[in-house]
Each structure stands twice: as C-alpha cells, then as structure tokens.
C-alpha cells in the first residue's frame, strides 16, 4: 500500500501520506538513523513486553475470520455431512465442489440458478457505476473550473443532499417507474442507483478536481482547448485514481444492495440481483445449507476479488469520506 504514488487526497489521508513520505524520503542523517534504531528497538521491546497484546490481536483476528471460514468450509461439504457434524469436523469427511455446480446451475428447481442472478447483478451494476462516474466528474469539473452564476449555492445544494436517506425517496420513485411502465426494469435500477450516488460522488470528485494545478488548465486554454476537450484530455487522466476509488465504492454498493433492488423490482426475481436471490432462496431452501452456502459464496466472490485486487483504492475512498449507508 505504501509504495504507490499518493494521489491528491483530502484531509486526514493527505496528512498521513505526507507523514509517511517524510519518514521515507528523509535523508539518513545521523539523527534519523538514531531514531530508526530506537524505533526498531522500541518495537522489539514492545513485542516482548506485551505478549498479551499480541494474543488479544490474534484472538480478534480469529473471531473475525471464523464465521466466514465456517460457511466457506461448509460450502465444500456433502449435504449429509453438513447436518450430522459441525464444519470444524470437515477434515474427517470428504469434500466436494458439487454444491457450487448445483447452486450455479439451479439443480434445485426452476428459477433458482445462481448463474441467472449473476448475470442480473452484472447487468445492473456496470451501468450503475459508469453513469454516476461520468455525470459526477462532469459536474465536479464545472463546480471546480467553470465560472457560472449560482455556482457555489448549487454546489452546496448538491452536496448537502447527502443527508437525504434513500428511504425518503424510494416510495415516490418506485411509483413513478411503475406509472411510466418501467417498474421492474433495469432502467429503474440504473437510474435510481445513479441518482443516489451523485451527491457523494460530486463531493468527493470535486475535492480531487480542486487539487489539480490551475496552471495546467490555463496552458490548455491558451492552446485553444474548450472545456470538453480539457475535461477528457487533461482532467480525466489526472483524476483516474479518484475515479477508481469511487468506482469501486459504487460497485460494491450496487452489487451488495438489497433495498433498492427490492423496492424497484417489487419482489420479482426475473431481474433480481444475487443479494435478493440469496435472501429469497435461503428462505426457500431452509436448512439446505449445502446450497445456501455455495450460493452465498458465489455472490461474495466478485466483491471480495475486487476488494482484494483494488484494496488500495478502496481504502483511499474510505479515508476520503466515501461511506454511504
């Protein structure tokens, strides 16, 4: 995480990055060498002197990992074994990948194939990430670099709308989509996810946009470039890390969403994302843990993979204030 070039990030993170940078880049003067030695010694001393601390940290880590591990192990066990012995006895029973095949292809009846919901989740998520990214970065650019009347008032208005919880907007929106004949369509999900993402996205991206040196834009303007060209050729590449941060956020948010999907789709599973399907099927499957567990991990696999691969951007987004309830 520390070997990456830090992008322009606001507040705390910037301070943290700056502190890290000074630590790393300082010339090895006698003083800093001495400090290094002492810190290392201090660390060693601390590690020896606080074995309880280490034990406690390990206990916490185990506690936090155990629940996921339990269901993960279960997803590879045979149906009979799951109900006759705990997952911690899995070493004594054979393991199988069959549960995944069954859950994925829907061996348990019509409309239960996770493959179908997997496709739905992808179809819902990709436009619901791309569209707010485009719109928010356009708006953030204008708020940061184009002078127009009521600019500040409008910006405050947009970012103040972060305070509106989804709940208060859902009922009318769902009603409108129904009346327009778009109830239960992908459009209803794409458009509502986009709208709900915008206040936070504009706010975050604006913070990044502002950090870009004005001289860069000025130079482009002198060369005769208009706003549209400056935006796509100069700004967009520069804020790519910020776009990645928010993009991952929005991706996880939409992929893991249940509330918007439930309300917009009205409970129909035809275009339901995996969260909705799993919630539904876990009721239908009841104690069929071999299916529930495999289904759950099919839905968990993508966000966890994205998270592990792009953890750096994810953490950056978090620190920049990218949390949405």
């Amino acid at each position: 995480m520390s070997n990456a070039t830090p992008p322009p990030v606001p507040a705390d993170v910037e301070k943290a990055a700056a502190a890290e940078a000074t630590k790393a880049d300082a010339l090895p003067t006698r003083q800093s060498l001495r400090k290094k030695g002492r810190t290392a010694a201090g660390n060693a001393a601390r590690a020896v002197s606080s074995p309880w601390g280490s034990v406690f940290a390990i206990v916490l880590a185990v506690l936090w990992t155990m629940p996921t591990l339990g269901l993960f192990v279960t997803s590879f066990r045979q149906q009979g074994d799951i109900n006759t012995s705990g997952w911690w006895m899995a070493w004594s029973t054979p393991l199988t990948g069959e549960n995944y095949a069954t859950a994925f292809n829907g061996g348990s009846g019509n409309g239960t194939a996770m493959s179908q919901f997997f496709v739905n989740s992808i179809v819902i998520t990709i436009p619901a990430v791309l569209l707010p990214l485009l719109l928010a970065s356009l708006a953030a650019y204008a708020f940061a670099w184009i002078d127009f009347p009521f600019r500040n008032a409008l910006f405050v208005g947009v970012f103040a709308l972060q305070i509106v919880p989804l709940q208060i907007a859902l009922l009318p929106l769902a009603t409108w989509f129904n009346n327009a004949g778009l109830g239960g369509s992908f459009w209803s999900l794409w458009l509502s996810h986009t709208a709900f993402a915008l206040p936070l996205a504009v706010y975050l991206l604006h913070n990044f946009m502002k950090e870009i040196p004005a001289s860069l834009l000025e130079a482009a303007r002198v060369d005769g470039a208009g706003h549209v060209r400056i935006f796509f050729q100069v700004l967009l590449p520069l804020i790519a890390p910020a776009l990645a941060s928010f993009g991952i956020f929005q991706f996880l948010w939409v992929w893991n969403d249940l509330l918007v999907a439930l309300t917009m789709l009205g409970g129909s599973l035809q275009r339901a994302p995996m969260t909705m399907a799993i919630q539904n099927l876990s009721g239908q499957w009841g104690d069929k843990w071999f299916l529930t567990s495999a289904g759950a991990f099919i839905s968990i696999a993508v966000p966890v993979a994205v998270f592990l691969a792009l953890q750096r951007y994810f953490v950056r987004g978090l620190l920049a204030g990218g949390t949405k309830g």
Partner: protein
Amino acid sequence: MLVSFIHAAGTAESAGDKLISLVIGIAVFAAVFLGILGLASLFKGRVGERIQAIAFVGPTVLFIVAALVIPAALTIRRAFYNGKFFDLNFGTARTKAQFSGFENFQKLWTTPGLTEVIRNTALWVLLVPLVATGVGLIYALLIDRAKGEAVAKALIFLPMAISMVGATLIWKFVYNYNGAPGATQIGILNAIITKFGMEPINFLGTPVLNTFALIVIMIWIQAGFAMTVLSAAIKAIPDEILEAARMDGVSGFKMFRFITLPSIRSSIIVVLTTIAIGTLKAFDIVQAASGGKLRDGVLASEFYNRSFVTQEPGLGAAIAIVIFVLVSPIIAYNVIQMRKDA
C-alpha cells in the same frame, strides 16, 4: 419504435438478452450525455461558456432534483395522509387517501410493536458505533507497525466487502440452532454451549436476544471500517510528538491516553458518527434474518414493511421522515467537520 426498443432493453428476460440490454443501456447513456457535451462544445465565447456549464452540471442537477428533492418532498407530504396507496389520487372514494394530520406520527407510539422497534433501533445506534469503534481502535493500536500488518488488516476488513445479506447468512450459520433434544448442533456457538452441558440457545428466535445477535453482525461488518480510518490517523501522528513524549518518560497506557487519543480525536468522532448513520439506515440484516417478524425490527426495516408489505404508505413515510430527522444532523456535523479539516 425507439421507445419500445429502449423499453425492451430494460425488461430483457434471457441471459443473452440481458447482456445485450447492458450494452444498449450503456450506449444510450453514452449517446445522450456525450451528445449533449458535443453540442455544447460547438458554442464559443461567453455564451459557449454558459452553455457548457449547463451541459456539465445540468444532468447531475436534474437527476438530483428529480430523484431526491421532489420524491423527498412528496414523501413528507404523504406522511400527513392515510390510505393504502402512495398515489393520493389512486383508489376508490372509500380507499382514497385523506388528509389525516399528525395521525401517522402518533401511530409511531400507539401501533403495537412499534415501540419495540424504536427501542431496538436505540440499542443498534448505541451499541454498533461504540463497540465497532472500540474494537477497531484496539486492533489498530495492537497491529500498528507489527509484522504482517497488511494481512492482519485485511482479515478484519474483509467483511466490509461482503453484502449485508451474505454477512447475515454467514452468521445465521454461526447461530444455527437445533431444538431437538440431544441433536447435533452444527452452529459453532451452540456446539460450544452444549459441549459444556448447557441447553442450546435459539439466538435468532428469542426476542431481545435476537436483536443483540443481529447487532453483533453489524459490529462485525463495521469494525474494519473503524480500524482502517483509525489506523491511518494513528500513523499520521508526527514522530516528533511521540519522540518528545518518550523522552519525557511517557509510555504504555499513558502514551495512549495523553498522546495518541487526543491526536486522533476528530477521526474517532468521524468514525463513530459515520457508523451511526450506516446503522440507522441499515435494513438488510434484519430483512435477511427474519424480516423483522421476530420482534427484532428496526426503523429501517419497519419502513420497508409498512411501505411495501402492509400497505401503510403514510406510516412508512412517517418512519422515513424519522430516519431523515435522526440522520441529517449527524451527517451535517460530519460534513462540516470534514470541510474544516480539508
């Protein structure tokens, strides 16, 4: 023709059609918004500047007004009407919504079960931020600059990537309960309990206890967030300060109490408030566990039930307003705090 084409793209049924509608959806969005930009860039000079500003900001403002501002206003109005349909003009003369003043807000206190929901929500909002932040802080301190810090962090952080529905499923298995006498317990908690000769516990079926069981799930999810932010804050404390304190012979708990804690105070507040907001709005855990049917509901799940299940949109709207009123001062405070720091 075009309209039916677009409509078809949103209502595809087979997997192939759905993927095609994905492409069409992106193409439509790109065509519309890039088209607007292209047109705007044709104008030059002062007029062009204005038109480009509109092209850049307009879509966002339009989205926000249409999908947040107006709906919020409608929901607020709806809370003052009774009736079974959200649309005030919908229904027959008998079922049509009528103005009912503050009746829906009074129902918050008089409807059976709702006081329980309010109590549960209070438990959630108190316990989740405090415990999650506490655990996150302790963990961040313990693993700071330790060997394998990155892995240790990822372990605690991973639940954040998992959907709340998935997390609830994972924990349902932990809490699994088999009431048959002498039955094998496949949930690890009840396996441990019965190992010690005690009776297994129906964690998710016993009221009040089940609320605590669900609160644990939210803590499990949020601790990683607290740990990440606080760990960054701890690392941002200047070395000179720590060094100076060490010179003065400060160490151990005193170091934490008088140096670390004051330095990360504002981060702790941001973490506490952010988790409190998330907790107030979180509906997925209760929905995935029981749908709030086992007297374990919270405001966010009750909003959904009243609005969409029991067809009491007025009461649903009133609950949404309560959530809004509870959440907005915290967010406002947070945003002001963040702008101060920035």
